[in-house]
Structure formats: structure tokens, C-alpha cells
């Protein structure tokens, strides 16, 4: 690979990310899938980096799941999103940060639609005024939360206690980076590196000492695809997509998969269990799976947070082999303990996939 050429191209694919004062909107599903991620993001931004991040408890779904499942009409989605903008405006913020890739894609779609059809913007303003009495400003800067971690990756590296280096071999850990489809495939200019060279997760991995794997199906969808999963009869499509990626990355022996979308880590993580039960196949070493992390969880590990505080115990694929490689200190006995050492109960063990 001619790296000089790549660097020049990547320079042309940068996006503007605000420095401070963010209005943060959470995801509908991430708190169930990976309960520690959003809390960790706020902890890093507010306490580690000293940034002003505000969230409003009145914030609702962006309707993205319903919209992409053909249940919620676009005008309804636009009006709901206009309400989020109104909450942001009322709180005195101009920079909006989304936790969810689907939200980020839908917000971008709405803003682009209003840009090309200003009469529709006026109509939505009227709808919102009639329904709630609220008014709103369009955000000056729209970013995904992974954009912020990417922007401040150097600051995180400066405070890090762990690196993506295999403590046993001294070699960089091999990471698969997987970008959510709605991050930059729909609007390439809205993502760091565009759709061709999405650099947002690569930047984190490289800055924190890891090595990124380039494999044939790197840009393939994880298979979530909303209707592919939400309709049970269609789940064969969803799991087939994930398996295609696993089969493609397996020969490169990745140590972890890093994602920036709510759906991708969920499906990479859970489908590894389902494939092991259906076909007896596992993709990691010694019947382990390949650990799947969100960018917040990885940031937390780099900063030395307790893995059980990050919520890594709710992953279906055991993360312990990765923690051992990085050299993260953890107490196995506290894995299933909640706040004040409350026993959360141990899940049933998979029949093939190794779990602790």
C-alpha cells in the first residue's frame, strides 16, 4: 500500500467536529444492548476531558427504527426530530451529538432534505408549533459520539493506562473496525473519511497502539438491516451477513472487533453465539469468539476503567481473553456483581462457545 497517497486522500475527507458544548441524545436500544457505553462516554467527555455535555430527560426516540421499518412516515420522523432540535435550542446549545448511528443518519437525512426543500422545513416548523408550541434552530454542528472520541483520541491516549499491545508478545493487537452503514454510506461527507476511507475507528485503534486488519468483506453490512432482523422469518438473512464477515476476517486472526453503531456490536456479539449453537463453529482461539467492543468500552479499557463497570459482563462473547492480552486488571469473582456487590445471577452457559 502506498501510504502517502492514502494520507493525502484522507486529508480531503475530514469533517468539522465542534470543540465543546454538546447537546447529547442517547440511543433507544444501546442501554439495553451495552448498558455501560453511554455512561462511559459521558464520564470520559465530562470528567476526563472536561467538556460540557448536556442531555435532556425529555428527549425521545428519533423514530429511526420505525422509519427504517416502514412504520413511521418521514414527515412524522422529521417532526419528532424537530422536537429534539427544539430541546437543544431551549437548552442553549448549537452542537448536537448522537449516540446512535441510525439517529445520526436520520438527522443527516432530515437536515439534507430541509436544505434542498426549504418549504418542507417551514411545514415541519408549523407542525411542531401546532403540536407542542415549540420552535427550534437547526444545529450548527452535527456529530456522532464516535467523532468526538476520534477527535480527542490523542487526549485519551495521553491519559491511558493500557495500550492495544499484547502484553505477552509485545505485538500490536489486531483489530477489525466496523463502521455502521448509516454513518457515512448515505452521506459520505458527514463521516470522518467518507464512505470510502472511514477513518473514525481506525484513528482510535492506531492512536492506541493497535493494528487494523484489512479483509475482503470489511465494508459489508453486519446484517441488522432492521426488517432483516425484526421479522423473525428474515433473520436468516441477518445472520448470513454476519457469518460472511466472520468467515472473511477469521483467517487474519483478529483479537477484537470495534464498532460505532448500536446494531453492529449487538449482532456480531450475539450471532457468534447463534452460529456456534447452529453450526458448531466458533471464530476465536480455543473455542472462544472474537470479542466485540463499542468505541466507548474500548476507550474505557484504554483509560483503565474496571471492565465490569463498562458492562462487559453482558457480552455474549467472553471478553476475558482480550482483557488478558491487553493486561487489564479485573476480578473474575466480581463479574456478575452489580452496585454494592449485589448478585446479578450467572447466565446459562453456551454449549460450544467458551464463556466464563
Amino acid at each position, binding site marked *: 500500500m502506498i501510504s502517502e497517497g492514502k494520507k493525502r486522500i484522507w486529508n480531503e475527507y475530514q469533517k468539522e467536529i465542534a470543540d465543546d458544548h454538546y447537546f447529547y441524545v442517547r440511543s433507544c436500544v444501546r442501554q439495553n444492548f451495552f448498558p455501560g457505553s453511554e455512561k462511559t462516554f459521558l464520564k470520559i467527555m465530562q470528567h476526563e476531558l472536561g467538556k460540557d455535555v448536556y442531555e435532556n430527560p425529555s428527549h425521545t426516540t428519533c423514530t429511526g427504527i420505525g422509519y427504517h421499518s416502514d412504520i413511521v412516515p418521514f414527515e412524522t420522523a422529521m417532526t419528532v426530530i424537530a422536537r429534539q432540535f427544539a430541546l437543544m435550542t431551549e437548552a442553549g446549545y448549537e452542537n448536537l451529538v448522537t449516540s446512535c448511528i441510525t439517529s445520526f443518519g436520520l438527522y443527516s437525512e432530515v437536515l439534507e432534505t430541509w436544505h434542498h426543500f426549504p418549504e418542507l422545513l417551514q411545514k415541519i416548523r408549523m407542525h411542531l408549533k401546532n403540536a407542542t408550541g415549540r420552535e427550534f434552530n437547526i444545529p450548527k454542528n452535527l456529530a456522532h459520539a464516535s467523532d468526538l472520541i476520534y477527535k480527542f483520541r490523542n487526549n485519551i491516549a495521553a491519559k491511558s493506562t493500557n495500550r492495544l499491545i499484547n502484553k505477552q508478545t509485545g505485538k500490536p493487537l489486531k483489530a477489525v473496525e466496523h463502521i455502521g452503514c448509516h454513518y457515512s454510506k448515505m452521506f459520505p461527507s458527514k463521516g470522518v473519511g467518507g464512505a470510502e476511507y472511514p477513518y473514525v475507528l481506525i484513528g482510535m485503534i492506531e492512536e492506541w497502539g493497535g493494528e487494523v486488519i484489512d479483509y475482503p468483506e470489511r465494508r459489508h453490512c453486519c446484517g441488522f438491516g432492521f426488517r432483516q432482523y425484526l421479522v423473525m422469518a428474515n433473520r436468516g438473512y441477518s*445472520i*448470513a451477513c454476519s*457469518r460472511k464477515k466472520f468467515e472473511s476476517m477469521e483467517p487474519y486472526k483478529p483479537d477484537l472487533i470495534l464498532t460505532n453503531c448500536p446494531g453492529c456490536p449487538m449482532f456480531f456479539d450475539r450471532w457468534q453465539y447463534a452460529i456456534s*449453537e447452529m*453450526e458448531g463453529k466458533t471464530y476465536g482461539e480455543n473455542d472462544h469468539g472474537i470479542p466485540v467492543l463499542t468505541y466507548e468500552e474500548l476507550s474505557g479499557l484504554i483509560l483503565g476503567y474496571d471492565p465490569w463497570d463498562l458492562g462487559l459482563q453482558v457480552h455474549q462473547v467472553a471478553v476475558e481473553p482480550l482483557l488478558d492480552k491487553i493486561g487489564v486488571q479485573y476480578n473474575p469473582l466480581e463479574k456478575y456483581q452489580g452496585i454494592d456487590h449485589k448478585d446479578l445471577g450467572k447466565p446459562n452457559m453456551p454449549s460450544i462457545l467458551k464463556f466464563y
Partner: protein
Amino acid sequence: MKQFGYSINPDRQIDYDLTDKSLLSFIVSFEPSLLSCISCGTCTATCTAGHFTDFNIRRVHTLLRRGEITTLKKEIQKCMLCGKCQLACPAGVNLRNLIRSIHVAVEKFNV
């Protein structure tokens, strides 16, 4: 194995690095002119059998190259070996011998 109420859909991707080319190699050794084929479809356009059935000699060639050989035996039964395709072929492929070679190959490889 557990039943989840759905299965993993089979992959329809054709990976030319992984396909079985032994049948194709065997046939090309019998009829090397097949390598001159430009996939123009003239053979299929002039095919009398193709006029009355779904026989498509161009498709047979494509399946052969893709390694999708399970239906080949049934397909080539439809050919009458009249040789009109061979007269029309601009690349000079000996198509009658090709069909005969496929007959031999499917027997040899027990496809």
C-alpha cells in the same frame, strides 16, 4: 444443535478462487477452442432446441465457469447436436464437440 426458528441463509456469492474448476479443465483439454468464446450469445440465439425449450448453451458455459455443475447433466440432454450454433459462432468454437465433452466429463466426474 439448537433451533431458533430460523436458519442461516446459504451464501449466493460465487468466489472464483474457491470454485471447482476440475470439470472445466477436463473439458477444455478435450475442446480448447472453448477458450476463444467471447460470450456473445450467438450460439443461443440460433439454437433450435433453445427455441422450444429453456436450453441455453451460453448459460451452460457460464455455469461451467462458475463451478455450478450440478444441473449440467440435465441441461445438455436438451441439445440435439444439430450444429447450427457452431456454424454461427464468430469465434470458431467447436460447440458440438463441447457438448460431447461435457457428456463425457459429467460421466467421468459423476456429476
